[in-house]
């Protein structure tokens, strides 16, 4: 139980959430990533979001593939079960876990190599199925753990630390996720906590496949001039299409929000996401408009961030399959085994 390595004492003055949990209760073991790695900032944002949403830590299951990014589940949510599976296959493992127990909250953490290179197929098909999860890609354009080769999200022409240029057409996971039927699709930046935390909270509130592409600079291998995934480059080129606030079901929606270019989206559990439009042309509830926004940004050489697309009443895998409300892993012989009488009938039909 890796997280035990760290002492946990509750200082009386420390802030607690509705459950009486402190931030500490959402933390994991010490990170072994490089100092300054974008991934650590994302872990912090996830911890922050879970704390603010007052999620029960042990009701969250965190799954990942292989990579520096995929290591991060160890560094958060120490009270949650985690599964660091194999490279590029988190989506299928998460799908199976989800089928076994629909009552838990599923967090999938992956990298751009893990998702866009080896894992592209599984990513695509998990989105198509509408698996109820929060799927976060910590996107740095390189394979960090294997020392900085380009991944499939590296922009054509961007330069590697050794000076080599990326040759192939980059994959835009956000555009792909929308095309594949994901019902909550966002992009953000590890350096922009103000934008990232609400997005993660909204994603947790969303029922269905929620995907967030978080650009997360690799300070060791891809944070130099000539890289399009460096802190500086992303700061300069990212344009937020909207800003959002998540308002828990109980809280009233403050009026001034509801005014002007803002829309309120009610999530399945009654909470509300209030969106303030920053790009007038963008409508995150219209798939075609969302795709058009991405095209505009691409042509302008900008990085569109924020909530790019959301489908309010999306169906998720269990709904599609019509599985029982009780978790499958709780069913016993009584619900599962047809018994000897039924077998006698079957035998009779086979003569």
């Amino acid at each position, binding site marked *: 139980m890796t997280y035990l390595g760290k002492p946990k004492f509750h200082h009386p003055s420390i802030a607690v959430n509705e459950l009486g949990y402190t931030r500490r209760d959402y933390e994991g073991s010490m990170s072994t990533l490089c100092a300054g790695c974008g991934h650590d900032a994302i872990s912090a944002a996830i911890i922050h979001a879970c704390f603010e949403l007052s999620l029960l830590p042990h009701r969250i299951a965190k799954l990942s593939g292989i990579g520096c990014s995929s290591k991060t589940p160890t560094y958060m949510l120490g*009270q949650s079960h985690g599964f660091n599976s194999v490279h590029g296959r988190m989506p299928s*493992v998460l799908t*199976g876990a989800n089928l*076994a127990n629909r009552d838990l909250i599923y967090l999938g953490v992956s990298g751009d190599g893990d998702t866009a290179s080896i894992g592209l197929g599984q990513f695509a098909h998990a989105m198509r199925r509408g698996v109820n999860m929060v799927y976060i890609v910590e996107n740095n354009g390189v394979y960090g753990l294997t020392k900085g080769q380009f991944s499939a999200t590296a922009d054509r022409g961007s330069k590697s630390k050794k000076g080599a240029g990326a040759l192939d057409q980059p994959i835009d996971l956000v555009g792909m996720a929308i095309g594949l039927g994901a019902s909550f699709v966002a992009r953000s930046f590890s350096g922009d906590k103000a934008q990232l935390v609400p997005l993660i909270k909204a994603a947790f509130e969303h029922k269905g496949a929620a995907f967030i592409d978080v650009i997360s600079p690799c300070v060791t291998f891809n944070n130099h001039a000539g890289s399009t995934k460096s802190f500086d480059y992303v700061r300069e080129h990212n344009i937020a299409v909207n800003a959002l606030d998540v308002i828990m079901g109980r809280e009233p929606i403050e009026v001034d929000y509801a005014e002007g270019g803002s829309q309120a989206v009610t999530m399945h559990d009654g909470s509300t996401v209030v969106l303030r439009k920053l790009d007038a042309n963008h409508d995150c509830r219209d798939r075609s408009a969302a795709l058009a926004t991405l095209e505009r940004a691409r042509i302008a050489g900008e990085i569109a961030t924020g909530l790019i697309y959301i489908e309010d009443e999306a169906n998720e895998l269990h709904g599609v*399959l019509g599985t029982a409300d009780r978790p499958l892993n709780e069913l016993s012989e009584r619900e599962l085994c047809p018994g000897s009488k039924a077998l006698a009938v079957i035998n009779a039909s086979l003569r």
Partner: protein
Amino acid sequence: MPIAAVNDFVIRFANVNGSGSASANLLFARSILRMGVPIGPRNIFPSNIQGLPTWYEVRVSEAGFLGARGGADILVAMNPQTFVQDLAAIEPGGYLFYDSTRPIAHLLTRDDIVVLGMPLTEICTKEYSDSRQRQLYKNIVYVGALAALLDIELSVIETLLRERFKGKDKLITANLHALKIGCDEAQSRFQCPLSVRVQRSDAAGERILVEGNFAAGLGAVYGGATVCAWYPITPSTSLAESFESNCARYRVDAATGKKNYAIVQAEDEIAAIGVAVGAGWNGARAFTATSGPGISLMQEFFGLAYFAEVPVVVFDVQRGGPSTGMPTRTQQSDLLAAAFASHGDTTHVLLIPDGPGETFEFGASAFDFAERLQTLVFVMLDLDIGMNAHLTAPFRWDDARAYDRGKVLSGEELETAREFGRYNDVDGDGIPYRTLPGTHPTRGAYFTRGTSRDRFARYTEESGPYVDNMERLLRKFETARRLLPRPVLKAAAKPTRVGVIHYGSTAQAMDEAQALLAREGLHVDTLRIRAFPLALEIAEFVREHEQVFVVEQNRDAQMRTLMTTDLELAPAQLTSILHFGGMPITARFIVGEIAGRLRRPASAQTLERVS
């Protein structure tokens, strides 16, 4: 001199696939079974959807020897494409029944067979206007003719038709009509019945006729499987379909209409096993079904399941390899790919059923073994078991039987537990305790990974904890060795120094071979292996016999490699008898090989390979 045989013959139908002959042939076969006579039907079909040659063979055996036999006593030649080769398959003194609409006298080169020509096409053209009908009913017409020729009771066929088309009276009358046409035509043309015929019996008894894939899917339902993820591939597809249809029948909540199961047709085999592993990790009984190519693709996940100790079941319906190989032929050639699956030091549990009956049993118990041992369990079927119907004892289930969920700690247990170490061998059997996500707010959470870790699931790169863990896994597999189904011994009538080891679908042919050899005065004890890691009884059996044959349906003597590796047996003690052409092994072949070998030095054949 025509063959004379009652309830003991092989009839083979040569058809074109997609022509609707399959159901007619099945009707024919089941009618014999309904007369109480044991049958062993087999499909020999192409990897194609329509238009290519396909054969259906029925072994009729009062004595209950239902394995493939080879040769045909009666050949029903409905496919001109293959006429010549079909003709050659007829045993001397056998019968050829063919469509004599077009004259083919020039092809009838054999004078040692009896030829029964009937202008089926002509008859049907007269009878039916619609071409599709002509096509379909032609099949029923020849069934009628064969009923007359083989003395099959029309009433029995009629009952079968009524059961099948229940409620569709039009179809029933139409079929009965076609049946009668064929019967009458035969009566009028030939001297019925033939010297080869069927006679009522009670030899079949209570036995059922069922395909292994159906049995496996049903077994998984009885075994409590709730998550199935699969990707279509011959010959395993009908296994997943069986699970689906039986779930639809027995697992849907009557009140809510909700499903107590989840089936995902994954995008490929890697995703299929990934879903199963994820579900197994999260406490559901999960499985996938596949065949050779899928086994290759799933290797990385197999290694993860072994090392991270995740319970999951994989049904491998073996087909002809290597590579895409022969998708519609049978083989036992995935043993090594399964037993040692994945890179690094790995071993996996294999269950090897001999037919649908045991497949149902293993299909259910595999989940107990997987959860008890916290590992991957392979159930090794093959195309012959999976896709052919076999006569077997009725399925049985003890309603008192409870699932063995293995060592899973509940919330209460975690409360009281002194300490929890996911990979801690508390009981000395190599099996640690596990917890499921969501069980307890502050205890029992751990991180599952494919990398090395210590007893408390903490990541480590140190040799000590790594070796400690790898050696515990060896202990766990010794526990498995003791836990798994024992081999089945069939002793010879007389004491003998010759033993034969076999497994899986070879059983039917082997039992017959044992009897045939005994007739020749060659007595052999047989031992059927049912699981890997191998039971120690197998080593004893080898020690107790001077000469031991190992009969396998693969080229490379894969079980023999498992025996020498896992039981420290000397290859020289084990003479391989290998049959790997893709058709089910026959008693004739085994008898020929063993009888021949008993006059040659034991390991001659196998030594050739290295000399």
